[in-house]
C-alpha cells in the first residue's frame, strides 16, 4: 500500500448554541442568564472541516499548517478516532476511522493524550499511559528512561507533574507519544512553548522516527517546524485545504517574486527608474541616498532578478556607474504562507461583496 493515511472529502460540523440579542427578554431569562445573554438562543452550525482530502505516504512527515480555528486539531482528532466526521472518511493503513476505529488505535500514537493524576510523577504518568496502550510492562521501564532522556526530562522523571512548566508538560506529552511505538504518530503542536535549542533537538528526534519508517502527521503554527521537519505540508484555512505541497515547491511557486536590494554609485533615481521601466519590475523604491558619495540604495521587486541585473550591468559598463552591492532574496516559507492566506481572505471578501 502506498498511502499510510488517506483523507477523503472529510467535513465536520459543530453545533453551537449562540445567544441572539435584540429581542425583548423576559424577566426570568434576564434573572437567570443576565442581560447580555437573555435575548434568545439559536443553534448555529459551524463548519470546522470542509471536504478535506489528502494522502500521506509511509515514512513521511506531513504538516498541517494554518491559523487558529482552521481545523488542524479537529482533523487530528478524527484521525485519532476520538471524533467522527460528518461526511467523508479517512483511512489509516486501509482501516476506516468511521468503521474500524479499534484497528486504527493499534496503529497510532498521539501527543494530545497524556492522562493521569497531576500529583503523579512524570514516570508514573508514562507508566499509566503505557498500560492504557497495552504496552509490555516488562519492557516499558527501560523504554520510559529512554524517551525521558530523548525529551530532556530524565533528571525530572520522579518529580510531580503539577509542578512542571508548560514547556516541560509539552515535552512529557511528546515523550508519551514516543513511548508508544506505533506506525503513525499524530502530533498536535508538539513543540509549543519549548525553547529554541531544545526544539531543534526534538525536531531531529521526530525526523529520526520518520527515518525509521514511522509516518508522522503534525499540526503546527510554527513555520520553523514545517521547514525543518516536513516532507509535505497542507495549508488549511477555515476548514478548507488551500494547498498541499512540499515546502520547497511552495517556495518555488512563490519565487516568481524576488526582492533585489542594490546599492549603486553614479546613477540618479530618474535614470534608475528609466532603465528599469520593464514589465519584469513590479516595484522600485529608493531606500537611502548619500549626496556626498553619490551612493543610492534601492529595493526592486521583480519577477526575474537575473534579467534585471544583466540590464543594470550593461548600463553601468557604458555609463561609468558602479554597482556597490547586490542582495537577491527569495521569499521565505513564512512569506508564502502569509501570502496564501492573504489571497484566501481577499477571495473570501470579494465573494462576500
Amino acid at each position: 500500500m502506498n498511502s499510510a493515511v488517506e483523507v477523503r472529502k472529510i467535513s465536520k460540523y459543530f453545533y453551537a448554541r449562540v445567544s441572539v440579542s435584540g429581542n425583548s427578554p423576559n424577566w426570568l431569562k434576564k434573572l437567570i442568564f443576565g442581560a447580555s445573554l437573555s435575548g434568545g438562543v439559536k443553534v448555529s452550525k459551524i463548519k470546522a472541516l470542509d471536504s478535506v482530502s489528502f494522502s500521506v505516504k509511509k515514512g513521511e512527515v506531513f504538516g498541517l499548517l494554518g491559523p487558529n480555528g482552521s481545523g488542524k486539531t479537529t482533523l487530528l482528532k478524527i484521525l485519532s478516532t476520538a471524533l467522527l466526521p460528518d461526511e467523508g472518511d479517512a483511512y489509516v493503513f486501509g482501516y476506516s476511522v468511521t468503521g474500524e476505529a479499534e484497528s486504527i488505535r493499534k496503529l497510532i500514537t498521539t501527543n494530545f493524550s497524556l492522562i493521569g493524576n497531576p500529583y503523579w510523577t512524570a514516570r508514573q504518568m508514562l507508566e499509566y499511559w503505557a498500560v492504557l496502550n497495552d504496552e509490555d510492562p516488562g519492557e516499558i521501564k527501560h523504554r520510559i528512561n529512554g524517551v525521558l532522556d530523548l525529551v530532556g526530562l530524565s533528571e525530572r522523571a520522579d518529580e510531580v507533574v503539577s509542578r512542571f512548566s508548560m514547556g516541560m508538560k509539552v515535552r512529557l506529552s511528546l515523550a508519551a507519544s514516543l513511548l508508544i511505538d506505533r506506525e503513525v504518530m499524530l502530533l498536535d503542536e508538539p513543540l509549543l512553548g519549548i525553547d529554541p535549542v531544545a526544539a531543534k533537538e526534538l525536531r531531529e528526534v521526530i525526523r529520526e522516527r520518520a527515518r525509521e519508517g514511522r509516518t508522522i502527521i503534525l499540526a503546527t503554527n510554527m513555520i520553523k517546524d514545517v521547514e525543518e521537519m516536513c516532507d509535505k505540508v497542507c495549508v488549511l484555512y477555515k476548514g478548507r485545504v488551500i494547498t498541499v505541497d512540499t515546502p520547497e515547491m511552495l517556495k518555488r511557486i512563490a519565487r516568481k517574486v524576488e526582492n533585489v536590494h542594490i546599492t549603486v554609485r553614479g546613477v540618479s533615481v530618474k535614470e534608475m527608474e528609466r532603465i528599469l521601466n520593464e514589465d519584469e519590475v513590479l516595484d522600485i523604491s529608493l531606500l537611502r541616498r548619500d549626496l556626498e558619495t553619490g551612493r543610492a540604495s534601492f529595493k526592486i521587486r521583480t519577477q526575474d532578478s537575473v534579467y534585471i541585473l544583466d540590464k543594470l550591468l550593461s548600463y553601468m559598463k557604458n555609463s561609468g556607474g558602479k554597482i556597490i552591492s547586490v542582495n537577491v532574496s527569495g521569499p521565505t516559507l513564512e512569506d508564502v504562507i502569509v501570502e496564501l492566506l492573504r489571497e484566501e481572505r481577499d477571495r473570501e471578501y470579494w465573494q462576500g461583496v
Partner: protein
Amino acid sequence: MNIGRVCRKIMIFVLSDIRMVFVFQFGLLFQILNIVIGIASYYFVFKYFLFNEVVTEYNQTPLSFIILGMATNSLLITAMHSFYAAVNNVYYKRILEKVLTTTTSPYTLFIGSVISSFLPSIVTTITYLVTGAVFFGARYGNLSNAGIALAVLVVGVMCTLGVGVFLAGLFCISPLFRQSSNFIMTLINLFTTTFTGAMFPVRILPWWIRAISYLFPQTYTIELVRLALAYGSSSLPLDKIGGLLISGTVFMLVGVFILKKGLYRIRKEGFVLPEKGITLILS
C-alpha cells in the same frame, strides 16, 4: 479479549484512585466524623422523642432501624452514583476523549472507577454499623443471618448499578441532562435516600410516592436486607425478590443500550465547542 490484561488494567485504575483518596486523607477523616455526629443526633432525637410504635415488623428499635437503613443506603447510593460519576468525571476532564485514542475500552476505565469508589463506601457502611452497635447499643437483628443479608445486599448493589449505568447513559446521550446533571443527581440522591425505606418504612408513604419508590431497586434491597437480618432467608417475600431483579435488569439493559448510543453521540458531537463556538448574532 484478554481477561488477564483487562483485570490488570482494572487493578491499576483502582490503585490510581486509591492514591487519589490518600491525597485527600483529611476528607475521609471528616466523613467519618460526620457519620458519628449524625448517629449521635439520631440517638438524642429518639431518646427524647420516642416513637409511639416501635418498629416491631423488623424486630429492631427505631435507632437500629435508621442506622441499618443508612448503612445499607450508603452502599446503594454508591452503586447508583459511581457509574454516572465515572462517566461525568472522564467526560469533563476530557479523559474519555483521550482514552478513545488508545487500545483501552472506555468501559474498562468506568469499571475500574466504579470498583474504587466502593472502597470508601464500604468504610462508611462499617463505620455506621460499628459506631451504632458499640456506642449507642444498636442491635440489627440475628447475627446468624448476617450471611444471607450480605448476599441480598450484594445482589441489591448489582441491581442498583443498573440505575447508575442508566444515568450514565442519559448523561452521554442527552446534552440537556449533561447541562443540569448535578441538580438532577442531587434530586435523585435526595429522593432515594429519603423515600426508599432507609429512614422509615415505605408503607407509611402516600401511594404515589410509594409507586415511584418501587421503581428503584434500592427500595427492595433495603427491605430485603432488614427482613433477612431479622428472620433469615425463609422470610424473604418472592414478590420483593422478583421486583428487585426485574427493576435491576430493566435499568441495566436500557442503560447499556443508551450508554452505547451515548458514547457514539459524544464521538460524533465532539467534547468541546470549537474556538469560535460562541458568537453573538445581532438581529
